């Protein structure tokens, strides 16, 4: 299990044994004009970050922690947030098709196995209202951790592919295959939009049809998650019967 990955030399893959955060490393590369599809991958993140500044538990030699730099030419900022849903669909499809794992998606992009979180995605955008300079997609996937490896505060909610399937995985092979699928998926998204991913997202999600409570820094909304809009937002019917479009927030 405590084995380093063997990443082939590739000018667009930057491999580190240990790093602050792969998203931060990609941002530094982006500011130095690194190319579209450049990837930073690390065995360990010392300041791995989840959404909104939360820490992401990313110990060495056990998971996949990597970030991808994207410089889409035609995509505009209003549609950019769909990249998080696209990423979730590509990863879920890969793990279902190649490893037989029934990965589910919690809106917008938490990856779950047996209702426990095995993966997360953190995306960042730099641009102006009409122009994207670059996107960063950060991916954390728990692969070979055992249940006792997780901190006690995460233990009940977190899992790895290994804790669910009982197998150990070749992380190098998994990363390289997943990278190929992500590059193909992003190519399709940049040329055809979110539509090719829309029905798969709905097929994989656990969110639709459920009672949900969504919280964000300025409020909360309880209701039933009815559907996903074609833009990727969640349609929620509140207790008064009003349907709201939700673009942000955390589902409890």
């Amino acid at each position, binding site marked *: 299990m405590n084995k380093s990955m063997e990443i082939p030399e590739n000018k667009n893959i930057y491999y580190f044994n240990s790093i602050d955060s792969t998203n931060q490393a990609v941002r530094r590369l982006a500011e130095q004009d690194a190319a579209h599809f450049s990837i930073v991958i690390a065995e360990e993140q010392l300041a791995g970050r989840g959404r909104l500044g939360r820490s992401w538990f990313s110990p060495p030699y056990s998971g996949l922690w990597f970030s991808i730099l994207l410089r889409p030419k035609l995509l505009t900022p*209003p549609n950019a*947030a769909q990249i998080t849903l696209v990423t979730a669909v590509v990863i879920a499809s890969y793990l279902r098709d190649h490893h037989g794992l029934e990965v589910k998606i919690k809106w917008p*992009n938490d990856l779950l196995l047996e209702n426990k979180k095995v993966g997360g995605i953190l995306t*960042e955008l730099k641009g102006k209202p009409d122009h994207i300079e670059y996107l960063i997609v950060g991916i954390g996937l728990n692969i070979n951790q055992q249940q006792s490896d997780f901190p006690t505060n995460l233990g009940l909610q977190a899992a790895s592919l290994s804790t669910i399937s009982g197998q150990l995985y070749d992380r190098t092979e998994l990363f390289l295959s997943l990278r190929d699928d992500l590059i193909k998926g992003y190519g399709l998204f940049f040329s055809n939009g979110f539509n090719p991913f829309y029905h798969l997202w709905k097929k994989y999600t656990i969110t639709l049809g459920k009672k949900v409570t969504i919280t964000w820094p300025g409020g909360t909304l309880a209701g039933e998650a009815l559907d996903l809009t074609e833009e990727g937002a969640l349609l929620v019917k509140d207790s008064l019967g009003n349907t709201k479009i939700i*673009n942000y927030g955390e589902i409890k």
Partner: protein
Amino acid sequence: MVIEVKATITGNVWKIVKEIGDTVDEYDVIMILESMKMEIPVEAPQGGKITEFKVKEGASVIEEDVVAILE
């Protein structure tokens, strides 16, 4: 000269990282928006002094909304 700072995307104001009266350079991050788990820094389009915020943390915005004023 009044400079409008606009939201890049429809979302929620997660964090305002500057204060009224702060002097900023072009590209300095003024606030961070969030939409569908994407974080979107809103940068100063030019250098100046922040004279007003049009939104508070937690507020909803849509793209092109004016979120702050620089002079």
